[in-house]
């Protein structure tokens, strides 16, 4: 792998690509749905998620906003802004098309299928450094499993994508078939901010987008507690969950609290046999942008100390979202011994399909050079 601008190879574990319009998905529909979309006008609806309006300053850094259309729709900009801009060897793309939040399981599944096929053709085929997450209708685990089975043969899909605010907490047993399939195919579950299937917090509906965005961190915290308490990791010891765009620094205090409560009420969930913090260290990873930290006080080193783990953080830019300016994507000095781990080694350890393609490309180069010399 080439060095990034940070002096080490880098893997960007969260960039965003967006379906420009629902109409773009029409070529990926079967006859029934093609007709239904056209006659019902579904192809004219944006399905933008209410928590994620495309014109807010957060949705795109000014220099990462395309001249026209939604942020994340321009491959050239993704190349110049993210891949070449930081010199990343790979970037994992998340395409969070809002149609997944529909109440009809079938329609949500049709959207997922169309989006995944569109991503493969329009992005992965055109940019070899790009990898993607399989979008699934998480509210319908049987259909989600079917979509994983359908797409998992394409090794450029490296994880399964779910949302932090879903219909149910992610630890619940109804989701376990999804995890079984993910583990079987060597795919981590990437839980991304967003969703808003219902009220953003337990106190009900607030007023502001800012409020909803901040509340995503609370939703992630609930998901971590759910995954551990329900025993998802006891059931699937190989399961890895990546928290994407979570804000990160809420985690250590959350675990102090979770450990404390567990010590007292352990017998309610006796399959949780180690402290929650231990389990989280083993199974959960977090992407680094946005990184909520005190003004002017870099906090990443403290986070690592408090978590007692150097393995948990995965470099991300969250392109094109606006969390930082210029090349300040990496909240740590590149000379730190942690830099290499966070920039690429942790990602390789988390995503089996990335290390596999790296091995393939090394093997490919070796074969090529042997052929040349013979």
């Amino acid at each position: 792998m080439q060095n990034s601008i940070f002096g080490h190879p880098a893997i960007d574990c969260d960039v965003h690509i967006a379906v420009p319009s629902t109409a773009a998905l029409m070529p990926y529909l079967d006859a029934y749905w093609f007709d239904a979309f056209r006659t019902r006008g579904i192809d004219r609806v944006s399905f933008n998620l209410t928590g994620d309006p495309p014109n807010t300053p957060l949705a795109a850094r000014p220099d990462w906003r395309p001249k026209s259309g939604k942020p994340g729709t321009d491959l050239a900009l993704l190349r110049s802004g993210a891949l070449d801009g930081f010199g990343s060897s790979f970037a994992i793309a998340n395409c969070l098309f809002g149609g997944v939040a529909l109440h009809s399981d079938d329609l949500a599944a049709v959207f997922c299928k169309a989006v995944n096929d569109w991503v493969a053709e329009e992005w992965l085929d055109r940019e070899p450094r790009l990898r993607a997450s399989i979008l699934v209708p998480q509210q319908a685990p049987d259909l989600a499993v079917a979509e994983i089975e359908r797409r998992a043969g394409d090794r450029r899909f490296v994880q399964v994508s779910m949302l932090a605010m879903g219909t149910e907490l992610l630890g619940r047993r109804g989701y376990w078939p999804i995890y079984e399939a993910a583990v079987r195919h060597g795919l981590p579950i990437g839980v991304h901010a967003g969703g808003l299937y219902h009220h953003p917090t337990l106190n009900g509906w607030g007023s502001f987008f800012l409020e909803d965005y901040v509340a995503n961190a609370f939703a992630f915290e609930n998901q971590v507690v759910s995954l551990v308490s329900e025993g998802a990791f006891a059931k699937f010891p190989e399961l890895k969950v990546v928290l994407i765009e979570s804000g990160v620094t809420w985690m250590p205090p959350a675990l102090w609290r979770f450990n404390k409560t567990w010590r007292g009420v352990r017998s309610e969930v006796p399959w949780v046999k180690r402290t929650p913090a231990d389990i989280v260290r083993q199974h959960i990873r977090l992407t680094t942008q946005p990184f909520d930290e005190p003004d002017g006080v870099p906090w990443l080193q403290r986070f690592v100390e408090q978590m007692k783990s150097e393995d948990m953080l995965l470099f991300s830019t969250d392109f094109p979202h606006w969390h930082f300016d210029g090349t300040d994507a990496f909240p740590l000095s590149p000379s730190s011994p942690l830099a290499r781990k966070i920039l690429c080694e942790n990602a390789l350890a988390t995503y089996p399909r990335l290390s596999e393609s790296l091995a393939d490309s090394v093997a490919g180069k070796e074969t090529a050079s042997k052929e040349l010399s013979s």
Partner: protein
Amino acid sequence: MDRHVVAKVEDVPPGGRKLVTVRGRPIAVFNLQGEFFAIGDKCPHESGSLCQGRIVGLAEADLPGEYRLSRQGEFVKCPWHGWEFDIRTGQSWCDPTGTRVRAYDAHVEPGAEIAKGPYVAETFKVTVEDEYVVINL
């Protein structure tokens, strides 16, 4: 190591417990179906009195949803935050590597024998007919 007579056997019936003080240390004595065990009374967490905790069994599970209870009556749950301790060993179940309460050797000796000793037997109303719970400390 001195021997301390801390209770009459009949004071601590099977399933019962008694708080005693030996050399200024509060100690909780438990009777598990005729066998006596003694552990430091102060919970290593916030010092709740273990002697006042509920007696429970050991809840375990290999997989989610597969509950089983064993060793009924052999654990005490701290009355405050519910940490569980193995009455036989003082071992904490919520943090087995880091936490335990001290376990003391407690056993029953015939009263006549103790009355002969030079130790603390005189502070108790020793009657030679009874059996006594003795702690070595």
